[in-house]
């Protein structure tokens, strides 16, 4: 690999790089080996700790909990995209009585921690007499309010990064402002901002794990429940390992789909790359 940051390595540098590579490999393998050694020493790999995962009922529960996570993710993702588009249009509106409330809405909901938002919905609203708040609604509404606000900023930055001529041309051929927004600017903005949108979707997927704290029956909640089963030797570490593998797997699948989608979309785009590249850096919100 050649990089602007360093010269093409000569014979001396190549030898040095080999030594450094070996040292790095030893350190990394050492850390992993130490963790595995501790796991093995404390009996995390014994059959006793893993037997709970052999029961069909337990496996079924895990599948159900994956479904619960994906259900919350899907609903929240669609909701956030819709809310995001609406808020972005609201912020770009000419009338101040629309744009100012939308501005404050996005700013406020981005500033409140998502967990506090979920707690307000789950513990706070019922005390005010609102009925029918399930953990699912708390998780989804919290995710939609927060990520909708973040995505609104993303869409807005995407629309503003487009060349002005796009909007002017649309207006010149007689389209209304709303038509220009929806059929000229939004599709291009979505394309330009695809990587950020996908990154935000991964964030939504990860944040469903917060449902654990408001007792939503998702993967992590089930995992800690299995982990607390004393009659199977409290397999906390095995259960968390299973949950971790599932989460990383789901996120990687989502990221893979995203890459594929981006490549497809990139086949025929001429969006202002340099400008959006800078705008993108700004917007990642873990």
């Amino acid at each position: 690999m050649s990089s602007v940051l360093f010269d093409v390595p000569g014979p001396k540098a190549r030898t040095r790089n080999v030594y450094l590579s070996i040292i790095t490999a030893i350190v990394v393998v050492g850390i992993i080996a130490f963790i595995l050694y501790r796991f093995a020493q404390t009996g995390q790999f014994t059959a006793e700790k893993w037997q709970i995962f052999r029961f069909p009922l337990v496996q079924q529960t895990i599948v159900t909990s994956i479904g619960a996570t994906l259900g919350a993710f899907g609903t929240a993702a669609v909701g956030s995209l819709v809310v995001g588009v609406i808020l972005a249009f609201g912020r770009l509106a000419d009338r101040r009585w629309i744009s100012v409330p939308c501005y404050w809405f996005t700013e406020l909901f981005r500033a409140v921690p998502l967990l506090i938002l979920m707690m307000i919905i789950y513990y706070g609203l019922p005390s005010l007499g609102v009925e029918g708040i399930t953990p699912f609604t708390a998780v989804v509404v919290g995710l939609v309010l927060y990520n909708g606000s973040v995505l609104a900023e993303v869409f807005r930055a995407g629309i503003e990064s487009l060349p002005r001529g796009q909007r002017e041309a649309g207006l010149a051929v007689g389209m209304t402002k709303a038509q220009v927004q929806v059929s000229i600017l939004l599709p291009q903005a979505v394309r330009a901002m695809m990587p950020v949108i996908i990154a935000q979707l991964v964030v939504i997927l990860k944040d469903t794990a917060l449902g654990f704290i408001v007792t939503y029956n998702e993967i992590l909640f089930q995992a800690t429940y299995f982990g607390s089963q004393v009659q199977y030797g409290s397999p906390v570490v095995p259960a968390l390992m299973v949950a971790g593998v599932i989460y990383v797997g789901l996120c990687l699948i989502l990221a893979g789909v995203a890459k594929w989608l981006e490549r497809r979309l990139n086949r025929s785009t001429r969006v202002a790359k340099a400008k959006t590249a800078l705008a993108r850096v700004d917007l990642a919100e873990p």
Partner: protein
Amino acid sequence: MDTLINNLDLFVTGFKNTGILFVVSAVFALILGTIVAAMRVSPVPAMRAAGTLYVNTVRNTPLTLILAFFALGYPRLGLPEINFMVAAIIGLSLYTATYVAETIRSGINTVPVGQAEAARAIGLPFGKTLSLIIMPQAFRSVVPPLFSVLIALLKNTTVAAGFSVAEAGAIRANLSERGEPQMVGLLWVALIFIVLVLGVLSTLQRYLEKKWRVAR
């Protein structure tokens, strides 16, 4: 207002612990993140691979799971005991460091190519090119995204409340034990976070952005 004043002790300890979590984790995350970013652009293939592996694994794991591991799993490994606060700091630092690393790496990409070429032309090795020429400029250009990472860290500290750390996110549970209205307490917590994020951190970001702007 009564809820806030009558339970001021809860709010003060809660936000004090949030502050400790935030500052300590931020320092560790910035240090670790910078090192990982440097590893990811280094000429040594194994270092690049190690950095990529770490970032891709941790970034795709929910923070809640990482904290759960350090709070619930770690004590079973027979290693030196740590309290929940330290566990939360380790989890938050490891998680945030990946975001810091990615942000700084994107900052390295925004530094004009000529800077690195000039550094190489006068014979600086990789370490010096990076630490003397590239990093100072990269840091300045990523002040806004770095602050969004720090703001996210401040908000993420509330997740530690789920794992026995008495910080701002845990105020609700304590209030409900005292029989105080939960909604009012939660709205106060939310308001304080809004002030911290919009009032303090965003102002600091604008100030540093202006002060450290790179003339190009």
